[in-house]
């Protein structure tokens, strides 16, 4: 199956989402329409509980879409089997609020776990080291997470998310656990890498100081897209 890459990384039409069953059923997303062009850095903000994480997990093929249409990297993911969803996820880089690194593995090994997904074991170490170096961790590749600072750990997590050159990166409050300066550093590095490789980034953040890295800022309030503002770069 060949697919011609369109200029849109994510296309969302009339997407709604509900948690719970029966009387406890609660709608958290209402008729979302959203297009993310390739290469764009989009920041999503909004009050806590507005549905940002839920939307991110839907785009990331981590939840099953209930209503509406969702195309990720030119593939309609509504109705895909679990196994097919796993394949979609391999083209997406995830960065979480917590770094979720294996304490038992070195920085390099944590990143190599991602490379191994491609069944390419020969040059995995080289790729991991290269990625870590780009994130300023060249001298930390063989350190375990316990020997790294919070900012360094989050950079290892970013290296793990980006090492396979995913076309789409989803980040949920990646700087929330970091101090001001490391948060800024991490976001700037993400921006540089995304720009140089033409990636699409969708990042949820409450951190006003990092809004300037975005090409576009969208706001979610009570499960509805409230504002959508493009920034002149």
């Amino acid at each position, binding site marked *: 199956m060949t697919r011609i890459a369109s200029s849109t990384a994510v296309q969302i039409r009339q997407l709604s989402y509900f948690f719970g069953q029966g009387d406890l059923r609660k709608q958290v997303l209402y008729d979302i329409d959203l297009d993310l062009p390739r290469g764009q850095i989009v920041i999503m903000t909004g009050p806590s509980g507005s549905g940002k994480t839920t939307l991110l997990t839907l785009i990331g093929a981590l939840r099953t879409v209930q209503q509406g249409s969702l195309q990720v990297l030119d593939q309609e993911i509504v109705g895909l089997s679990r196994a097919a969803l796993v394949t979609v996820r391999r083209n997406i880089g995830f960065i979480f609020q917590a770094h979720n690194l*294996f304490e*038992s593995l070195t920085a390099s090994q944590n990143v190599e776990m991602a490379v191994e997904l491609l069944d390419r074991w020969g040059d995995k170490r080289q790729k991991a080291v290269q990625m870590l170096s780009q994130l300023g961790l060249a001298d930390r590749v063989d350190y375990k997470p316990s020997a790294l600072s919070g900012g360094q750990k989050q950079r290892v997590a970013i290296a793990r998310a980006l090492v396979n050159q995913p076309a789409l990166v989803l980040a949920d409050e990646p700087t929330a656990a970091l101090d001001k300066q490391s948060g800024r550093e991490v976001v700037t590095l993400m921006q540089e890498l995304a720009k140089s490789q033409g990636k699409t980034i969708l990042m949820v953040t409450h951190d006003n100081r990092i809004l300037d890295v975005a090409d576009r800022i969208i706001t979610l309030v009570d499960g509805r897209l409230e504002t959508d503002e493009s920034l002149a770069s």
Partner: protein
Amino acid sequence: MKTPLALLNLTHEKTRLLVAIAGVAFAVLLVFMNLGFLGALAKSASQIYSQFDADVFLLSPQTLEISTNKAFPRERLYQAAGFAGVERTMPIYAGYGQWRNPETRKNRSIFVFGINPDDPVFLDPEFRSPQNLDALRRPDTTLIDRLSRPEFGSQQAGTITELERRRVTVGGQYVLGGGFAADGTLLMSDQNFRRFFDPFPLNLISVGLIKLQPESDPDRVAAALAAALPKDVIVLTKPQIVDRERTYWISTTSIGFIFGLGVTISCIVGVIIVYQILYTDIADHMKQYATLKAMGYRSGFLVQTVIQEAIILAVLGYIPGFIISLGLYELTRSATAGGLPIGMEWERALFVLLLTLSMCILSAVISVRKVVLADPAEVF
């Protein structure tokens, strides 16, 4: 090479790993000891028959095993002697007697064999050394088994004590072993046996031994004897009587059940320990495993990782368990003065290894459900 996640996760928590290895080793040890005793039992039950120079055996159908025998008419042995292929028939008298330790003067039950001194009953030539043959022919004299427990006292030739409240002199020694039925054995002439166990009619015997001519087929002769002799005796070949004795001890008595239960409980203990360790390990790595799933790893990979951890624990626990068992076997042999022939057999070593692996993999399968059900969406 793939990142050895299972190994690294296990070795990261050193204390937990040591506890896990100790737990598996303990279970392995318990299984080895139970199977060792069971094996020794089976072996010692058959040991005595392998030392008789006979091919076919006559027993009363009411005889459960050699030490709880029911006597039958000696006449049957005379009848058997006339059959084609039979070279020689030899009677055995057997029963428990009270032996007084000459030093402590305490009585203890000992198992006594009575034979005709002219019969070459045993394969081992030591039984027929000139000194032993001479002693067998003297009145109120017995040979004593070197494998008898030390509680029976001196085995020195010339020792004088009491058997069944009657003066007896030790005339020599031999090596036989009483297995699980007896702590010690004596061997004496049929005439002496009758004297000590008076009234004991010599026309009733405990076991009839039949030695065949070299070219005759034991199965065929046994079948012919069974067809011709009255039903107050059963006819068994050597493998059959060994098997009958073994089956009695293992299946008919509760001994087999007890050791089987021991093995089962050891395995359950092992499964619970390994389950605890794996479950804790999984719980600690839940976020990481969910992240792997989000990245695109399939549940199969996680299952594989947990099973690898289980296999590593199985192997690492088996090795010390095996080594300590060898030591305990040795200790048991020396504590029983060789009377309990407990030893490692490679079939058992392999069986326990496979059992340990299955035990650990079972624990892995139980504990892994948690990872498989992990929802990557909940990581955000």
